């Protein structure tokens, strides 16, 4: 019996960490098409995030509250600094601005229904206010964007608050995009644009430049609406300390800071993944800016970008935010990326959980589309109900954590309740690395 020759050990095929399969596919795609990739959603890469923080909970020296019975407030008042009619929300979770155009009519209606059911606000978007949206939203924030699509004083007067959009976390420094597939006759008419063109929204406001002008612009909006409405300023997170300080100085009642995980309806992938800073990195800076001006809690801070759970809500509040806003999670609650639609996602070359072609108008869930057939698939009543459920869960979860930390209002959560799992998160959130008293970059703490 002859022995079989010894096989030479071989190494398995090895993928490069630099030229990993996804990167190679990107190069191949670019080489084949000659155009950059546009998609929806926010940054998909792993980033330091709320998952890297933990609550300490009550112990010997802290007294918890009884889980269900003891009161733990969640209401929040926004805009009391200058507005004669500030708004009061029952939960600190608001719905972020998403345009009619990017979203279908039924999706906008569902957002209004869901938010109103739990006593929170919705927000218009780049494309103006629709009657459905106004009609179904108890509290509606009207965005004032660089494009000024559909802007008119009647809608301004109908709004409950006004949000001056300077930037978005997914694309600080970039304007909006709405591709031709989604510029239906109605969308075109609302925006004064030709039907079917690939539309790009301005990235700068047309009639003001810089914070001194913004102060005068805010003054004009207040004059037009007789100083009734809260005025928010929304910024994409890049230099949150200075931007928050300048927005507050310009007279904002509320500052909205949107981190780089924040969703978008359509932006270049290279922009989404490479411009801006993570949500976790901007909260303490924004809070610090308000504290330095003596305005923390007087000017409210709303944080957005990757909020998914009540734990995320509680962590954002503990770091000093007054409220949060959600976009992507709200769309998922309505029915986006539903596994029941897997066959249709496959036909689009994707899979449930990864679908992000929100720019392209073929959304099988009927949410990010203007196609009447697709849009009619979304039942606004049922979808609104799902959103209301989800918002209730976020609120209950945040309350659960707050009670465990002994707080009778979610706003009583504080950085002292938190520790970080990683050095990066500890540095960004300015809370100690778990098991140590070390806050990297913070003098007077030690490893």
């Amino acid at each position, binding site marked *: 019996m002859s022995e079989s020759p010894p096989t030479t050990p071989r190494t398995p095929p090895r993928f490069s960490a630099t030229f990993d399969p996804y990167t190679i596919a990107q190069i191949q*795609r670019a080489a084949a*098409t000659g*155009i*950059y*990739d*546009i*998609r929806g959603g926010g940054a998909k890469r792993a980033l330091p995030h709320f998952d890297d923080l933990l609550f300490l909970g009550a112990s010997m020296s802290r007294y918890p509250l009884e889980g269900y019975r003891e009161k733990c407030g969640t209401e929040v008042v926004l805009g009391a600094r200058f507005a004669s009619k500030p708004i009061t929300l029952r939960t600190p979770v608001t719905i972020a601005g998403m345009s009619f155009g990017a979203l279908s009519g039924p999706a906008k209606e569902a957002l209004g229904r869901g938010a109103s059911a739990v006593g929170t606000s919705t927000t218009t978007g780049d494309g103006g206010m629709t009657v459905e949206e106004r009609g179904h939203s108890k509290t509606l924030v009207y965005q004032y964007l660089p*494009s*000024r699509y559909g*802007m*008119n*004083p*009647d809608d*301004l007067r109908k709004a409950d608050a006004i949000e001056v959009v300077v930037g978005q976390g997914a694309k600080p420094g970039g304007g909006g995009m709405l*591709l*031709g*597939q989604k510029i239906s006759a109605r969308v075109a008419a609302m*925006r*004064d*644009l*030709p039907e079917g*063109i*690939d539309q*790009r929204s*301005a990235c700068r406001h*047309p*009639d*003001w430049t810089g914070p001194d*002008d913004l102060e*005068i*612009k805010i*003054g*004009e909006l207040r*004059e*037009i*609406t*007789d*100083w009734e409405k809260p005025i928010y300023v929304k910024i994409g997170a890049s230099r949150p300390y200075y931007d928050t300080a300048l927005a507050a100085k310009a007279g904002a009642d509320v500052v909205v800071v949107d981190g780089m995980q924040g969703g978008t309806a359509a932006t270049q992938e290279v922009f989404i993944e490479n411009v801006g800073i993570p949500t976790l990195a901007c909260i303490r800076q924004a809070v610090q800016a308000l504290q330095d001006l003596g305005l923390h809690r007087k000017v409210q801070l709303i944080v957005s970008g990757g909020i998914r759970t009540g734990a995320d809500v509680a962590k954002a509040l503990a770091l000093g935010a007054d409220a949060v806003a959600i976009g992507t999670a709200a769309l998922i609650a309505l029915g986006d990326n539903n596994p029941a639609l897997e066959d249709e996602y496959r036909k*689009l*070359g994707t899979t449930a959980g990864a679908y992000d*072609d929100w*720019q*392209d108008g*073929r959304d099988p869930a009927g949410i990010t589309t203007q196609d009447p057939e697709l849009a009619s698939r979304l039942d606004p009543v049922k979808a609104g109900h799902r959103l209301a459920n989800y918002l209730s869960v976020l609120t209950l979860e945040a309350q659960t954590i707050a009670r465990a930390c002994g707080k009778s209002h979610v706003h009583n959560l504080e950085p002292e309740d938190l520790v970080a799992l990683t050095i990066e998160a500890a540095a960004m959130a300015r809370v100690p690395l778990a098991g140590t008293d070390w806050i990297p970059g913070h003098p007077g703490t030690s490893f």
Partner: protein
Amino acid sequence: MPVVDLAVSRVRELNKALHQLPRNTNETHWTVQNPAGQHSIAVGIDAPIEVMIEGHVGYYCAGMNKDAQITISGNAGVGLAENMMSGVVRLAGDASQAAGATGRGGLLIIEGNASARCGISMKGIDIVVKGSIGPMSAFMAQTGNLVVLGDAGEALGDSIYEARLFVRGEVKSLGADCEEKPLGSEERAILAGLLDRAGVDVPADSFRLFGSARRLYHFHVDNAY
């Protein structure tokens, strides 16, 4: 004939009084004295009244105007008649940047010159400037008509959509996707009507027309990767 002296009253009081007017008010002739360059004078009016402002105004005068006829005897700061919906705003002097920005209707007449970004993002407004306009005017202009009797600065009509730009003097340069177009009979009639309303007696044929080359209308991209 209410007279509001802004040396005595605050702009806020003036605007509030104007906003409280019912559309069928008898108080149809308002005079505003001593504006002294203050901002946001006579903004957000929603009534067919006449307002005479005696002097110079700051930013955003007549902003978002609906139906009112507002006349300003002096010069105006940034964003004159921004986002105007309807009505007529007439300025005797010169206007700063972004005059008529994003305007959606109505007529803005500037007797003097207008600075940079005149008619930026305009959405249906008609603007007649008897003097010259500065650079980057009609940037991203969507619809409406801009008529300039003098010269236009650099990058006129950059990224323009469907607005019409009529210029009688020199154009320093055109912005991306803006090109000269033939002045057809339809455009000539629109122009003649605007010249007439602005009280200008010059032949429509002495203007050149500029508009969109429509080469930026599509990104030429397969969007579903």
